[in-house]
């Protein structure tokens, strides 16, 4: 919309109204994260600013266009509007955008079939003049999240919008994420030159390897190559589709000795938020004992050369395929990301390769479900897939179910299953939000249009038979078996039969090298429940944990009538203390042991020296008190 008066400040004050559904609250915050990653628009809770957006649960999904300067500006996220792309769409309206097909030049790109439109709804297909709207020199965008779908306001089954290029008929109306041109327009309108949470992306296509540097404190170098005889045959960015391009970095473990290393460091990075997610693809054509260590080199005032801190050792890397990895970082000072390849014991003919690195100040997904040979399931009329079992950070066991039986679309469902912590957990499961995202494997995180759906466990939800939907799976679930024959109980699934259509699935890079990744996060969103909690029925578990908070993702357990924390730990680190508030590490133990040994040694040395000194002094004194020629042995005889 033309007019500077319609613009919002870059940080938009917002209020999440009490009327909002719990799932919608989490989805809205997720949509804000996409703005923070891809644009310079940020959001902050309203603190008295003159104008702000109040997001509430009205009837339907709607917004005004642009900043209306009315103080409280309403934006409705009603029932069934709790989808990330829907929230993005409504906020784009609020930021000043109309629909894509209402552009002044739209007739050059689409035909509106007026006699297929529901009578009385024709006004929805208005096109604006150049005086009313500005396309900001961005071409017409069939991919826009602001475009109507082809069936909008139709009276029968025939499309109301026909694209002039037929390939785009099933493209218009996507509700995945911002398109490249959505971002271009938004960033032009708001003069964006950077974003809050994006840090770096590298597909190694350019010879400068994104400013990465080879360390001198190692035995070998990472090489920029386009293929390796033992694999991979091509990079991950474009899987060898473009001749003369498609590079990745390779550490040849076959050409070095066991224990040798190659270290590759990123350029210096400047964090703003203090938490980061490192994501990359890794290929192992060496030996299963080869490993990749991820360090950070953190710079602070006292350490101009930076301190190397080991973050994660990636071992048991499967051989022969690109694998997606996520590493969570928590860095507040200037830093580099360090990739250290280590040659393990055993024969190696290849080595380790990395590609498509993305670093952003966002939360990593908690779990990754890697589905190989995905297209074989698409052609199966009985196609359905269960994920492996996973545990949420609170300790709930769950499984994802993907249905592939529909001829046009894929469904996805979240199931609670019986797990090892069930005796210590609260039932019915309260306010856990599960986010299931099919990853668009575009090399650049900013250009990804991943499709996600979230559901939230409402502890008061009941099934038709009167049982609580989210009650303990061993109570309300049905018997099921893992592939290894282990029996367990699985509760009813909760999700959507319309997760993604096959047309959209085949667009973008959802299927790459016949692999699909489903990213999973299950987190407690109880803190978003601003209204007074209603009493929640529990099956058998004490409420003691409700009043006992464990820090650092510790899990509360009830033992002998008391709440206790089970603290998380890794291979060389752990949390301890009553509430997991203290962090320990192997390095701390080594430092303590070494310094204790040194202190004891120094103390013993001092005692010895003092003893020797006193003894010598005593005998010297005694010797001085006798006459020079006295024969001592006979003095008292």
């Amino acid at each position, binding site marked *: 919309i033309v007019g500077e008066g319609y613009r919002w400040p870059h940080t938009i004050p917002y209020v999440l109204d009490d009327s909002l559904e719990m799932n919608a609250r989490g989805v809205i915050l997720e949509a804000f994260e996409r703005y923070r990653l891809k644009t310079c628009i940020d959001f902050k809770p309203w603190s008295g600013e003159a104008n702000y957006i109040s997001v509430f649960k009205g*009837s*339907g999904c709607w917004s*005004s266009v642009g900043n209306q300067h*009315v103080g409280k500006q309403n934006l409705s996220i009603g029932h*069934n509007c709790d989808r990330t792309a829907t929230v993005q769409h409504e906020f784009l309206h609020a930021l000043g955008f109309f629909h894509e097909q209402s552009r002044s030049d739209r007739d050059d790109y689409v035909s509106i079939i007026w006699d297929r439109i529901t009578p009385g709804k024709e006004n929805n297909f208005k096109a604006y003049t150049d005086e009313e709207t500005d396309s900001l020199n961005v071409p017409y965008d069939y991919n826009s999240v602001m475009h109507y779908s082809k069936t909008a*306001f139709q009276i029968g089954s025939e499309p109301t919008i026909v694209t002039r290029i037929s390939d785009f008929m099933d493209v218009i109306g996507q509700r995945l994420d911002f398109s490249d041109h959505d971002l271009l327009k938004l960033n032009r309108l708001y003069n964006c030159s950077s974003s809050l949470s994006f840090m770096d992306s590298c597909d190694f296509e350019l010879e400068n390897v994104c400013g990465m540097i080879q360390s001198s404190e190692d035995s070998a170098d990472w090489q920029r190559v386009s293929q390796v005889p033992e694999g991979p045959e091509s990079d991950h960015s474009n899987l060898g589709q473009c001749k003369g391009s498609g590079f990745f970095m390779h550490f040849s473990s076959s050409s070095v000795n066991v224990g040798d290393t190659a270290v590759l460091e990123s350029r210096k990075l400047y964090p703003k938020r203090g938490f980061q997610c490192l994501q990359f693809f890794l290929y192992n054509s060496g030996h299963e004992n080869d490993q990749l260590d991820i360090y950070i080199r953190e710079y602070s005032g006292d350490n101009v050369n930076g301190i190397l801190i080991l973050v994660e050792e990636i071992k048991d890397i499967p051989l022969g395929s690109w694998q997606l990895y996520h590493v969570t970082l928590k860095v507040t000072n200037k830093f580099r990301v360090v990739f250290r390849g280590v040659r393990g014991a055993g024969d190696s003919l290849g080595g380790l390769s990395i590609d498509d690195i993305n670093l952003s100040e966002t939360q990593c997904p908690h779990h990754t479900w890697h589905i190989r040979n995905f297209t074989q399931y698409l052609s199966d009329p009985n196609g359905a897939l269960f994920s492996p079992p996973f545990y949420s950070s609170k300790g709930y066991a769950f499984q994802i179910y993907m249905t592939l039986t529909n001829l046009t679309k894929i469904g996805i*469902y979240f199931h609670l299953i019986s797990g090892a912590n069930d005796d210590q957990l609260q039932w019915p499961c309260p306010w856990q939000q599960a986010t299931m995202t099919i990853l668009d494997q575009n090399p650049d995180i900013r250009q990804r249009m991943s499709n996600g759906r979230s559901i939230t466990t409402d502890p008061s939800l009941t099934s038709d038979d009167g049982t609580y*939907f989210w009650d303990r799976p061993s109570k309300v679930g049905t018997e099921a078996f893992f592939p290894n024959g282990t029996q367990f109980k699985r509760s009813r699934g*909760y999700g*959507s039969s319309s997760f993604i259509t096959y047309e959209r699935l085949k667009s973008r890079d959802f299927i790459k090298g016949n692999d699909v990744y489903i990213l999973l996060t299950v987190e407690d969103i109880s803190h978003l429940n601003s209204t007074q909690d209603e009493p929640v029925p529990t099956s058998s578990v004490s409420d003691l944990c409700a009043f006992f908070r464990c820090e650092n993702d510790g899990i509360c357990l009830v033992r002998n009538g008391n709440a206790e924390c089970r603290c998380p730990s890794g291979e060389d680190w752990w949390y301890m203390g009553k509430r997991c508030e203290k962090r320990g590490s192997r390095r701390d133990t080594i430092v303590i042991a070494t310094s204790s040994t040194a202190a004891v040694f120094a103390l013993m040395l001092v005692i010895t020296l003092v003893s020797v000194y006193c003894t010598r002094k005593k005998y010297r004194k005694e010797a001085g008190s006798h006459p020079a020629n006295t024969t001592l042995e006979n003095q008292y005889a």
Partner: protein
Amino acid sequence: LPAPENFDVDGGLDRDIFDINEDLGLDLFEGDISLDGVQERNS
């Protein structure tokens, strides 16, 4: 016994923003645009 059916939040339908609003009987400008603010400003 067969496992009970899963709960589909979309009720088997793939509805866009405009379909959701239309089903609710809303008659918003371009399907999901509120003109309240504009009208207030003009008046």
